[in-house]
């Protein structure tokens, strides 16, 4: 336990370096994957591919923000995909009735309310976040089914603005970046440079210590899950513009990849370690991997198996490296 470490092994030194600079190995991995893709299919990596990859990765990264922030406290938000879907579905079905701005406002309010319910359960009733968010996701998706029966006749319309945001391009880059860049900047700033962000890490590292320092954890957790709901709602809006067809399972396929993106990006599910920067790269890594497996024309079953195995291998390796020297 002395500060002076006498002659660490080279592997331990690499581990220490990576623990201090967790983004470096992730970026190396991402570059390596892109290089591998170029070798497997020469010419595939071009500006069009780049724009497309970013377009697909943005909603994943945004949904993974919900996971990253909750995971920092040792929690998780398994309702994020459902909330995004509800937000998208409500926007699409309400736009013909009340107009786009009101529809979006309602959709985001619903997302916020679900987040508040999660927060109430986790922060005040102390239900485990996994169970709480899974429960609200089930209830909310049930409500969505009921709601769908009532609106089946009204038809759907996707606001033009969302289509522009989801599929349009400016200077060859997807317009989604107009939303994502400010969003990511804000999240990273929040996690590093605000009291709230610090408290997320504090709760995840040692809730008892945070309590002794005067932190009322329920305030933090309630705000956190409400924020997570709002982010999921926002993601639903963007995703609606990307996919352009509202459905009852729109963003559900993103649920588990959003967790995977956060974990691959170096956020610990036990809390206290990680950040959104790593998650963005994690989302890019998952997207590139997906492309690679598709291009190799492996059948769906094999693709899933490989995808799962690669995620596990990357995570295990990453944890092993960064835990070295402890």
């Amino acid at each position, binding site marked *: *336990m*002395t*500060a*002076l470490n006498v002659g660490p092994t080279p592997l331990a030194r690499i581990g220490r370096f990576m*623990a*201090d600079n967790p983004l470096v190995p992730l970026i190396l991995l991402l570059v390596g994957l892109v290089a591998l893709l170029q070798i497997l299919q020469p010419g595939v990596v071009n500006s069009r591919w780049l724009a497309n990859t970013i377009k697909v990765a943005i909603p994943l990264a945004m949904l993974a923000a919900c996971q990253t922030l909750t995971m920092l406290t040792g929690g998780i938000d398994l309702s994020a995909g459902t909330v995004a879907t509800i937000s998208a579905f409500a926007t699409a079905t309400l736009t013909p009735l009340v107009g786009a701005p009101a529809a979006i406002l309602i959709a985001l309010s619903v997302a916020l309310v679900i987040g508040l319910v999660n927060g109430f359960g986790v922060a005040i009733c102390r239900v485990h976040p996994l169970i709480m968010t899974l429960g609200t996701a089930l209830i909310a998706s049930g409500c969505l089914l009921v709601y769908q029966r009532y609106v089946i006749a009204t038809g759907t319309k996707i606001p033009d603005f969302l289509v522009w945001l989801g599929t349009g391009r400016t200077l060859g880059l997807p317009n989604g970046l107009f939303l994502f860049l400010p969003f990511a900047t804000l999240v990273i700033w929040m996690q590093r*440079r*605000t*009291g*709230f962000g*610090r*408290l997320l*890490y*504090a709760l995840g*590292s*040692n809730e*008892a*210590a*945070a*309590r*002794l*320092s*005067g*932190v*009322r954890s329920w*305030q933090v957790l309630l705000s956190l899950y409400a924020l997570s709901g709002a982010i999921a709602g926002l993601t639903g809006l963007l995703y609606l513009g990307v996919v352009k067809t509202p459905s009852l399972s729109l963003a559900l396929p993103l649920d588990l990849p959003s967790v995977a993106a956060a974990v691959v990006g170096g956020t610990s599910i036990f809390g*206290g*370690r990680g950040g959104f920067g790593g998650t963005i790269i994690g989302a890019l890594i998952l997207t590139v991997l997906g492309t690679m497996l598709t291009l190799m024309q492996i059948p769906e079953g094999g693709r899933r198996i490989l995808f799962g195995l690669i995620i596990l291998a990357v995570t295990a390796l990453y944890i092993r490296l960064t835990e070295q020297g*402890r």
Partner: protein
Amino acid sequence: MAESETTAPVLDAEGVSKRFGAVQALRDASLRLGKGEIVALMGANGAGKSTLVKILTGALRRDTGHVRIRGTEARLNSPAAARRSGLVPVYQEPSLIPDLDVADNLRLGRTPVDAFRHWVAEMGISDLRLDDVIGDLPLATLRILDLARALAAEPDVLMLDEMTAALPTDLVEKVLRVVRQQADGGRSIIYISHRFAEIAAICDRATVLRDGATVGNLKIEPGIEERVVELMLGGKVAPVASETRSRAAASGDSAIIPRLRLRGLKAGTRLADVSFELNRGEVLGVVALEGQGQDELFDVLAGNRRPAAGSLEVDGRPVAFGHPADAIAAGLTLVPGDRAHALLMSRSVRENIALPLLARLRDWGAIRVRDEAARVTSAIERLQIDTRAQGEVRRLSGGNQQKVTIARWIAKGVNTLLLFDPTRGIDVRTKRQIYGLVRELAGQGAAVLFYTSELSEVPQACDRVVVIFNGRVVDVIPAAEADEATLMRAAYGLSRAGTEPA
């Protein structure tokens, strides 16, 4: 020391030693127990009492030495093996499984139910049902059940660890009577207790440990208390060289309204009734044997636990804390005994120190980076924290970790500092720095409550010291008179010649 008069001891431990890394917990411990004898095992904190007990009950293996039971070398490789050798312990913490009922617990331990019931009734618990769930029963009842279970196993040697600690007075009497009857019936008992009155009432001899070795084996007779305390202290009765310190009117000029006033504070099963005052500019020491209510006292003062009775005044105003945040708002800040409870191990020194600055809702916004850096840097400099490994607190040494937990409150601004054994397990140099800091803070007008398990620290850091025994303040001693012998006697509830307890 004096030889045991029994010819064929039931239990005979001799020359037992045990080393943990660099720490020699036991050097040369011996303990003899004749048939039908009750022997008190005594020793100050860190004397090696619990290590010896763990070796006898099979929880630890000895490095050297012999343990013979009825003349044959005993195999004590596991608690089960120790039981088979006829040695059954009753520990301080209840050992029954809380989620099961009484009958299931008995079945697990293969305890004969009829004998168990007999002993439970004998000790005056009449309303026990075998389908009561353990977790719903009060602590005092659980201790009785543990004892009854041990008695039902008909052990040759019974080991009782602070058996009466959580019991009300009437139960204590019944338990003592039963224990004495056991001995009269031929069983042998190792009795561990801090209470001289009980030891005098039932024990035949006392074996005293100091620094890992048995230093005395005394017959219980009037005046034994003084002899035992002397033995526990060894040669350390000489007065401590008192450093010249200027704290002229620590309690004199601020006597009008104390910073902190406690009246009849009660919490949990241990803190019974504590009253004292803490003034500005004063370092008030707290001395107590383990488990006399000091943990509960500090928890209550830090807002981490609500008192069951009593009142608390800060600057003359009554307060009630529902959360540590309330205590912090009133200026009461805690450095807990266990650093693992205070630190964010995987976060940086800076984040750890700045944590209380961000805790309140109104501080959740943008961090004022310059202000934070200035406060953190000056706290680090003041405490001389080694910042070579400041990326993660877990990489710091124990002493530096302790400094970080104190630095947190220095950065926030100290008003009333509650230090719970802040120097446990850290090096001498850091200890001295902490005494210096505590004196300096008091000199600047802070009030400091300083619990310590090392009696020799009291004259170096404190102005006065309150001694707590059995959940009550039994003595208040000026630091100048608080040599180790005086404190030790007071901590064991023995009254001081000449002075009356406050």
